């Protein structure tokens, strides 16, 4: 079948079976991404951002994780239907992931050059020598001198290690890069270097990207589209302009207001009271309703659908539903 979009996620639900109950980590999530486009996936701890990413990579640990429903189409092909072997061909080649913690995502007993060459050799029919030559090029592309090929991860600083992780992810020129909090562990001046690097590489290679972060400032710099997640659901989704300048969902509005902003003069931050609901015990209605300042009686029982309020701008809130309590 012909899909318009490069990546299409339809109705994805991912659950974890645990002793304390069924954790509904991701619920009915639908997203589209075009070639060369960047999407910022924003939310707080436990919102389901990383689980979504692992779902796209087909790396959900099973057990306890199960993909309860949904389809993920990459260039028209449902990758959830692929067998292990086919998926391994895709991973690192067409889809790559940059993990959050550069300290633990590298092999400490293997030189960084070899780690880059490894993924090249797996996916491309190249000799060891050729693969290593490519690895040196990739290292230099991310701003690490080729002479450091034989050094080990512990000899690099945090920022440099993250560059190595990015180099591994980009070694096979993936079509889709999933970056899970790639700069969270880094200092701001180093973060600036890494963001600059990611944006340049993305532009040069026309890579699509999903950037997972809790930092709305980073998203504003790198992405064109934003999806805001709360308790496993998308609550708002649209272009940067839609989300930042025409924020609609009460949670998104609360999120923006609670960030200290160097441009604002406010002495007190606006709060979102309370905490995110327990994912083993999600409320029947809207999952945000207990913290929402616009909640009405209906919110407790009715979980609103994701509604397109303007072209491309989706909101999950009763106040924007047709015939909703406006």
């Amino acid at each position: 079948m012909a899909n318009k979009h490069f990546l299409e996620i339809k109705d994805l639900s991912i659950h974890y079976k645990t002793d304390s109950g069924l954790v509904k980590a991701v619920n009915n999530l639908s997203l589209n991404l075009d070639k060369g486009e960047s999407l910022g996936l924003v939310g707080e701890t436990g919102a389901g951002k990383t689980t979504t990413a692992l779902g796209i990579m087909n790396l959900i640990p099973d057990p306890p994780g199960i993909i309860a429903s949904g389809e993920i189409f990459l260039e028209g092909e449902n990758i959830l239907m692929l067998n292990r072997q086919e998926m391994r061909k895709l991973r690192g080649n067409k889809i790559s992931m940059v993990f959050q913690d550069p300290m633990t995502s590298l092999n400490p007993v293997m030189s960084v050059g070899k780690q880059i060459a490894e993924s090249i050799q797996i996916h491309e029919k190249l000799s060891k020598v050729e693969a290593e030559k490519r690895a040196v090029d990739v290292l230099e592309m991310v701003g690490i001198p080729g002479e450091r090929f034989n050094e080990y991860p512990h000899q690099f600083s945090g920022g440099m290690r993250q560059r190595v992780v990015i180099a591994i992810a980009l070694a096979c020129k993936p079509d889709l890069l999933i970056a899970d909090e790639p700069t969270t562990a880094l200092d701001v001046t180093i973060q600036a270097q890494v963001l600059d690097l990611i944006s340049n590489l993305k532009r040069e290679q026309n890579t699509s990207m999903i950037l997972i972060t809790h930092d709305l400032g980073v998203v504003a710099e790198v992405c064109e589209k934003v999806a805001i997640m709360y308790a496993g659901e998308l609550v708002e989704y649209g272009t940067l302009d839609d989300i930042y300048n025409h924020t609609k969902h009460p949670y998104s509005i609360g999120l923006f207001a609670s960030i200290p902003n160097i441009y604002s003069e406010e002495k007190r931050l606006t709060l979102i009271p309370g905490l995110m609901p327990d994912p083993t015990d999600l409320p029947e209605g809207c999952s945000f309703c207990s913290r929402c300042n616009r909640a009405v009686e209906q919110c407790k029982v009715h979980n609103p659908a994701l509604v397109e309020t303007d072209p491309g701008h989706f909101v999950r809130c009763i106040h924007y539903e047709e015939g909703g309590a406006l």
Partner: protein
Amino acid sequence: MASLLEVRHLKKYFQTPSGTLHAVDDVNFAIESGETLGVVGESGCGKSTLGRTIVHLLAPTSGQIIFDGKDISSPSKKELKQLRKEMQMVFQDPFSSLNPRMTVKSIIQEAMEIHKLYGGDRRRQEQEVFKLMDTVGLAKRLADSYPHELDGGRRQRIGIARALALEPRFIVCDEPVSALDVSVQAQILNLMQDLQEEKDLTYIFITHDLSVVKHISDNICVMYLGKIVEQCSTDKLFEKQYHPYAQALLSAIPIPKVGIQRKRILLKGEITSPIDPKPCCRFVARCPHAISLCSEEEPKLLEVEEGRFVACHLQKIGRAVELTVPDADVVIINQ
């Protein structure tokens, strides 16, 4: 008004196998009562060591710490115990700074017991614990819970309640919100501001997050490799920065807004080693403006305008109040 805390030529060195690590190197500042001093800098700049040295979790190598007119640089055991009632600390990681085998109540009560507060009357202490829990927004029913049962925000509230248990006047807050989500971070920041007003507390607020520091501080010290490079009021610093590192640092903050264009100074390389630093400007290797003097002599922290202190040779030679950065080091960010 006399300062509540004054730090003079404070140094903290560590001996390591590869040499002497200058974690805090000749730092001077003063804090007025009721004020918040923000200390910002990147990992390894010595900001946490500075905080820990001030509250005597680490003994200073040299220099003076003057608290409320008294020199507390090398207190006796007895004096130190008294000092704990005056100055407390809130730690960064609410997961590792609480004893996992103690209940919320006993964590907060422990210091009261040690100091035999309220005449050593356990029931009175307990009442005070409940009052404190209420102050920091912890429900009374959580008194017998253990830290692992609670989320990060609640745990940080315990850390704050524990710091308040001895009714100190001065609290060092070492990255108290950096492990928290933004909506919880806002709750804790507001709580800390309320407490400051209510109890007339004085804070040193250590953080790497410049947006947080702008929100909460009256004055700011920017640290780089053990040294203060720029120090002034928060408003002045965010209006204009004189030190090239402060400029780069502020330009690197991601801003959650779209439709703006701004210049970002991209620093080359990374923070250099704090072990046996050469007697020159510590920022020289990454500085886009470095002149030969910078690698020959260490700049002193000088008052360049009223209330603004900067440690940079370019200021002394009268150049570059408005530093212009070479184009190669600037990226334009269109958001």
